[in-house]
């Protein structure tokens, strides 16, 4: 059995660790590229959302490399994510691929179902073995999140251009290659040492921008044109609203292990979106409110074209932005998005919030 899974940012690192430690052979699809997008789009329904297209491309590339078992997340709720796996399975079958697809439904009380599926994938490994492999993968996830947060803070103020990204690349390798918790602890030390040795410029008026929106477009640098890096290069400190750990918590862990944070957060969105609208639509709005309260200078809202939950969120953004006095820019991404257009918008948005901040220092502008 050769296991594969779709890409979403750095998720492949812990997933590979998990399955390999359980003795499965893993085929990591090539990182999402233009080719992935092209084949994905070619075989997807035109109006499907971008994540479906790109992950379908991942599967095809992995199947070409000999994978025969696809592990995919399922989903519930009004948004289309719940149908992804089914649609993709049918498309791949029609294309004549021979494979098994295992869909991991969010374990709302069905945690044992999930374990059973893992047992199947991993050739009947014991619960303890699954637990241990899961633990290491989870620790990697936590470290990856920490790393990404650090990088997003430092990139904006690095003195030597490109230094942060070099350290980041190296760190990803270290985390990826750690075989047990001891090695991972060692990797962590090394990474922290390296990152803290990057020389920083003193910036008194650093701009802070929050990133919110649909999870896949937020986490996958290929589809968002590496927006975090671009903002960092423009001298902006970036904070992303969703990290992999959160996704895993929400989608793979049993409910008693979930944090209460999302519920608290959802309250912030209540005046604008009172109910669950699928995906992270409500969370996006809540995060914007939260960023405004934390004194961020602006928020960028990312979504794939035709993404329903985020379109609902987008519709209330003018109001949220006005009431909480925070500029918000929505960027809609699809397979036709071009980097130059995105870059122009980013630069203009940063100019906008920078001027606003400078003006505020003198206490004149009221944002209306």
């Amino acid at each position, binding site marked *: 059995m050769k296991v594969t899974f779709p890409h979403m940012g750095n998720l492949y690192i812990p997933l590979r660790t998990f399955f390999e430690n359980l003795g499965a052979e893993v085929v990591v699809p*090539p*990182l999402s*590229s*233009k*080719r*992935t997008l092209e084949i994905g789009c070619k075989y997807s329904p035109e109006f499907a959302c971008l994540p479906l297209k790109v992950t379908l491309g991942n599967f095809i590339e992995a199947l070409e490399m000999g994978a025969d078992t696809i592990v995919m997340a399922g989903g519930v709720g009004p948004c289309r994510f719940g149908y992804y796996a089914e649609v993709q399975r049918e498309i791949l079958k029609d294309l004549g691929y021979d494979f098994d697809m295992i869909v991991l439904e969010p374990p709302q009380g069905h945690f044992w179902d999930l374990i059973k599926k893992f047992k199947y994938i991993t050739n009947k490994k014991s619960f303890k073995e699954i637990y241990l492999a899961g633990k290491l993968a989870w620790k990697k996830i936590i470290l990856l999140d920490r790393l990404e947060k650090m990088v997003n803070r430092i990139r904006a103020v690095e003195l030597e251009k*490109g230094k942060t*990204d070099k350290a980041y690349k190296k760190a990803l390798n270290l985390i990826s290659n750690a075989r047990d918790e001891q090695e991972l602890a060692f990797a962590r030390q090394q990474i922290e040492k390296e990152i803290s040795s990057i020389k920083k410029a003193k910036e008194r008026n650093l701009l802070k921008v929050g990133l919110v929106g649909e999870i896949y477009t937020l986490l996958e640098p290929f589809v968002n044109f*590496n927006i975090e890096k671009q903002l960092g290069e423009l001298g902006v400190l970036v904070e992303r609203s969703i990290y992999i750990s959160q996704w895993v918590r929400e989608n793979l862990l049993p409910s008693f292990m979930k944090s209460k944070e999302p519920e608290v957060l959802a309250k912030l969105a209540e005046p604008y979106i009172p109910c669950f609208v699928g995906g992270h639509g409500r969370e996006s709005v809540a995060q914007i409110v939260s960023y405004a309260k934390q004194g961020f200078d602006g928020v960028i809202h990312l979504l794939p074209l035709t993404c329903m939950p985020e379109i609902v969120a987008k519709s209330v953004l*003018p109001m949220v932005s006005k009431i909480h006095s925070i*500029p918000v820019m929505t960027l809609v991404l699809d397979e*036709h998005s*071009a980097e*130059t*257009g995105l*870059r*122009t*918008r980013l*630069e*203009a948005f940063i*100019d*906008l919030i920078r*001027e*606003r901040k400078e*003006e505020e220092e003198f206490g*004149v*502008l*009221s*944002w*209306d």
Partner: protein
Amino acid sequence: MECYLGIDVGSVSTNFALIDKHGKMLKKLYLRTAGRPIETIKSGLKMLKEDLKDDIEIKGVGTTGSGRKLASVIVGADVVKNEITAHAVASISEIPTVQTILEIGGQDSKIIILRDGIVVDFAMNTVCAAGTGSFLDRQAQRLGIPIELFGEIAIRSKNPTRIAGRCAVFAESDMIHKQQLGYKVEDILKGLCQALVRNYLANVAKGKEINPPVVFQGGVAANSGIKRAFEEELGMEIIVPEHFDVMGALGAALLAKKAMSQNKQKQTNFYGFEAAFKEHRAESFECNGCPNLCEIVQIYVDNKLIARWGDRCGRWSENVAV
């Protein structure tokens, strides 16, 4: 005399604005890019040089537009700015209280919302052709009307024809249909103006609060028919600034002036008008390093590689010291 130069390189037009140290326009140029941005930038420089007296001293250069990076490596820029900011800066310099900027150029259209002289919101449309100058050019050509007369004729219409304007393809076929039915040319032209305005308000302005003073700029602002259609649709006076067709370039020049005056010691990066006589070459190739197959652009000056971009991963751009 101390001057500042602004260059706005778009896919349709390349514009130059030369201003004095008070921000007054000394000379402007509006050139067709015609797919040859480097040549166009150079011929613009030459034209400026020929036109000007010798006591001109360029103290700073700003570039903007989709080709801003290219322009900056060719002429040596002090400021490289996005189009939104450049347009806003230029507009404020002419109408300091402006609250809304409608900009329709050859290749794209934008709306910029300002309050108290600061950009607070904007949107850009780079995808839909129905909202741009190129679309009007095409339709004028189809009807055999010189584009300069478009607005004049449209304004005469008493009974504009309704043209479906949601998308360029539909608008075009609808217009052809109406033309065959024998509608008057002026009514069709006015109908096109209204369709473009409707399309702009629905797709670009999308419910943004349009408050006066409203400034209309970009190449299409020359078309009085469009101006009138905006006025009728919005019920407001629309101001077309004096230098409406080169506002991006003007903004870039003003930004260069600002940047240089903030830092008095700084010498301009401008290579001088001689840049126009150097030999420039742009080459591109496809990188096979990974399946992204990035198109890498390389710029040579007198056979020396000076800039490189287009890679997603930094493999090529990191290795050129610009």
